């Protein structure tokens, strides 16, 4: 099924990209580009990047292409124009394109690490051993296996039903605590803050491992060590940390496709899925290590806004 969808999308993306480079009508080119980029959004869905797919459709297909179409309308008297280059220009471009394609396909096929990563829950420490044994049996010795703490859930107890300020303060305290405890815990980030159903005075904060793979590997963080870090921080007089639960996990990297499938299908292993990629994205952007790039991106938008206004108006203003 995945294969069918993939080939369908690939066909659409590539064929319409082909239309972009061959059509004689610039509006058709813009529409073909829209379809091609829409297919890329489809790929994002296949690649578990739902949020990005939505953004792709909204910003690219919705925004940029409208901009491009406006550009087309404002700069051309007629829509069908000499878009095609003479052969003298086409030939070298084809030539260079073919070689480049050859290089890229070659690298993609046989030079890049064509491997996969899996993360399993490992609450009892048994999973790691089981995975290791399976890997040995499958002859996949090259796979790297490491234990780590994938998720930590902190439970706070308040005096009475919690108010929004208390929730906010708790969250800030946890973040500050994590920052202070660098670098050992800097690979965790707040993923979810939720009140416990049926216990209005309780609050749970889930911390999850960052998307960055650790080349150093985050040693399985002892929940008691987390507690040690966070204990001195009582966010408020009326809020105490009462429990720290860590979810240990096994991360296996460098799996070949066959081994990957085999491991996924093993009934005794539970694959750990992230709580939410959208939340993870938001967290990485707004609170995590990508805050500075996020600000820079905002700045870039400002520059674009200003620059476009200046350039567009300078000819009009005397």
């Amino acid at each position, binding site marked *: 099924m995945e294969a069918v969808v993939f080939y369908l999308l690939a066909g659409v993306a590539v064929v319409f990209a082909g239309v972009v480079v061959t059509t004689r009508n610039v509006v058709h080119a813009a529409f073909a580009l829209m379809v091609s980029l829409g297919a890329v959004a489809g790929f994002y869905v296949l690649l578990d990047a739902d949020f990005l797919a939505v953004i792709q459709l909204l910003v690219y297909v919705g925004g940029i292409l409208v901009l491009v179409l406006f550009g087309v309308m404002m700069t051309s008297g007629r829509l069908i124009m000499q878009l095609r280059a003479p052969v003298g220009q086409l030939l070298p471009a084809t030539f260079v394109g073919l070689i480049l394609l*050859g*290089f890229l396909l*070659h690298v993609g*096929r*046989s030079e890049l690490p064509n491997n996969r990563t899996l993360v399993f829950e490992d609450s009892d420490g048994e999973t790691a051993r089981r995975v290791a044994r399976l890997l040995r049996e499958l002859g996949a010795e090259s796979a790297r296996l490491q234990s780590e703490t994938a998720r930590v859930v902190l439970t706070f107890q308040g005096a009475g039903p919690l108010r929004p300020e208390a929730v906010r303060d708790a969250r800030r305290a946890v973040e500050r605590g994590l920052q202070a405890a660098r670098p050992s815990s800097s690979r965790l980030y707040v993923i979810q803050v939720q009140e416990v159903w049926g216990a209005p005075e309780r609050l749970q904060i889930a911390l999850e491992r960052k998307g960055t793979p650790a080349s150093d590997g985050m040693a399985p963080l002892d929940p008691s060590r987390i507690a040690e870090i966070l204990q001195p921080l009582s966010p408020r007089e009326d809020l105490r940390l009462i429990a720290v639960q860590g979810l240990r996990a096994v991360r296996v990297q460098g799996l070949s496709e066959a081994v990957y499938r085999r491991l996924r299908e093993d009934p005794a292993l539970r694959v750990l899925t992230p709580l939410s990629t959208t939340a993870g994205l938001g967290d990485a952007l707004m609170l995590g290590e990508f805050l500075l790039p996020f600000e820079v991106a905002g700045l870039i938008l400002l520059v674009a806004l200003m620059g476009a206004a200046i350039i567009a108006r300078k000819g009009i203003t005397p």
Partner: protein
Amino acid sequence: MELSGTLLAIVLFAPLVAFLIQILLVGRWVRGPRVAGAVVSLLGVGVPFFLVLVGVVPHLFEPTAVLWVPQAPLRWIDLGPLSFQVGLMVDNTTKVLLFMVTLVCLMIHLFSVEYMKVRDGEPEPYYSRFFAYLSLFTFAMILLTLSDNLLTLFIGWELMGLCSYLLIGFYYERKSAQDAAIKAFLTTRVGDVLLLIGLAIVWASVGSLRLPEVAQGVQAGAIKGWLLTLAGLFLFAGAVGKSAQFPLHTWLPDAMEGPTPVSALIHAATMVAAGVYLAARMLQVGLFDERTLLVVAYVGGFTALFAASIALVQTDIKRVLAYSTVSQLGYMMLAVGVGNYTAALFHLLTHAFFKACLFLGSGSVIHALHEAFHRHHLHADAQDMRNMGGLRRRMPLTFGTFLIATLAISGIPLTAGFLSKDAILAGSLAYVLEHPQHLMLAVFGFIAAAMTAFYMFRLVFWTFAGTPGGRALGPEADAVRGALAEVRESSWVMTVPLAVLAFFALWIFWSLHPASEGWIAEVLSGAEGWLPEAAHRAEAHGHGPASVHLWTMVLSVGLALLGVLVAALFYLYRRWSTERFAQGQFARVLEAKYGLDALYDWAFVRNAHRLSQWSGRFDLRVIDGAVNGLAYLVVGARHSFTWVTGAIDRYVVDGAVNGVAWLLRQLGAGFRQLQTGYIQGYLLVVFSGLVALAFLISAAFR
């Protein structure tokens, strides 16, 4: 599909069955071009191709050898304790060769369906006989590749000799065809006799002719010292005859008397490939020791250069291609000689495709010209390049495919030929770096590369560029020009095989990486399951320091482009004239093919006793000449010395100051010209710069 004995047996015997059906049934009752004959033969090679595609190709990357020996070992000849066991074997080398042989044979069969229909305006009377021979030829080659022993290999080998005799002499009413057939048969026979002696030595020492056992025997030291060398040299002599290496190469150009598809078959997929295949196998099992290998390398390298130089002046389109085959086979032998087994077989494969494409392309041209000349009742030679020209527009498909194959044989990047030739040249360069005393080996290869590009583009420019019949001579010249204007593209039965073969002449099938050997090298250099561990010495050479590849690429591409450029200046733009060159002594020597054909004719065919007289005269002339020449040289040197010192004063010292400034200004103006103001031009520079840098740097560590 599983690789099984049954599958292999069908692959092997299908062409034989086709042959038998034709000879026993079809040929008897029907005369003239009947489709039945063609269909039987097409099936006879099409079925094996299909089986190879589904049964062998999927197992390409499995590093195993499948040996299939009949249940009760087939004892061919029982001589008490010694007996010949025969069986079939499929290892990595065989897998790729089988694919190539069946595919190329299929294409040639298909092409022949149309090509052989007519002889001199009449329907071909021996149509099915021709196809019968083709089938037998195919069977012989498949038998040779599938054999696990030297006995059946030798049977296939001899069978091919017979087929080549039958097919070269297919137009037997022509005297020249008869002569050529006999010449081919006899010349290769010289090699075959020596080969038989070699086999005898092996059999006597090892006690078996099965390849795995021979490999083990050699490993264990069953043949030692000079006996091993002797055996190797005898075996190599067989390959020399079959693969038309110097000095037994004279039969191959004459074999052009056969129909063009036969030439394609002999030159690409079967006969001549057999010699290289044998040499490569012998290298693999260890029957070639250091001394033999050196001989192989020198014979190969010299042949590459020697044949290329003769091809420079040929005017018959098929003869140019014939000498180019000899030259390319020399390359392969050179690769075997420096121990570069992978490169030799790789070039054998790529060469098969582009050479078949070249021959069939020339066949397409000849066919069209024949038709046109026949319609105009002309007797002009349809194979003479001087009667061609300007065919580019008349036969665009033939031209396109021919050009691709020409680029491939010239070793221009982005073709299969570039990949394999580069591998050979890099191997020889690496060998020379290790053994500087054998510098000539690399020199042979590189100079031949430039010559190849030159004569192949000369051929293309003469045939396809310029004005139609622009070079035609004689009383019929004007009529030839008129006939050429009516030439038409050949039918799809002929152009489809051309397109298929041209595709395989591109790099993309062999390797995605445009500057490095791809999967094929991976397959070929993989361990062969039947060889003893330590016998994998085949790959000992051929991989020198990383920078060797870089320099090889720069040198070979540079030389090839130089060859193309010089050819273009001579024949396309007519900047330089060939007149003076053509009247010179050197050209005459080349046209006489260094006199070797005449020499053999004279020495072996006529009376041999004049040889002594001749050598006496040689003595007189050469030694006398040398003394006189030396004196002349000394006098000349003194004169030129005074002239040079004067010139240095006048031109160099004065000129340097002004010249450098002038040069700088010119260069500056040149670079200003590059800055054209076209943004897309700038971007093209970006991307082509990227590609060029990638090419260069990736060649340094492939």
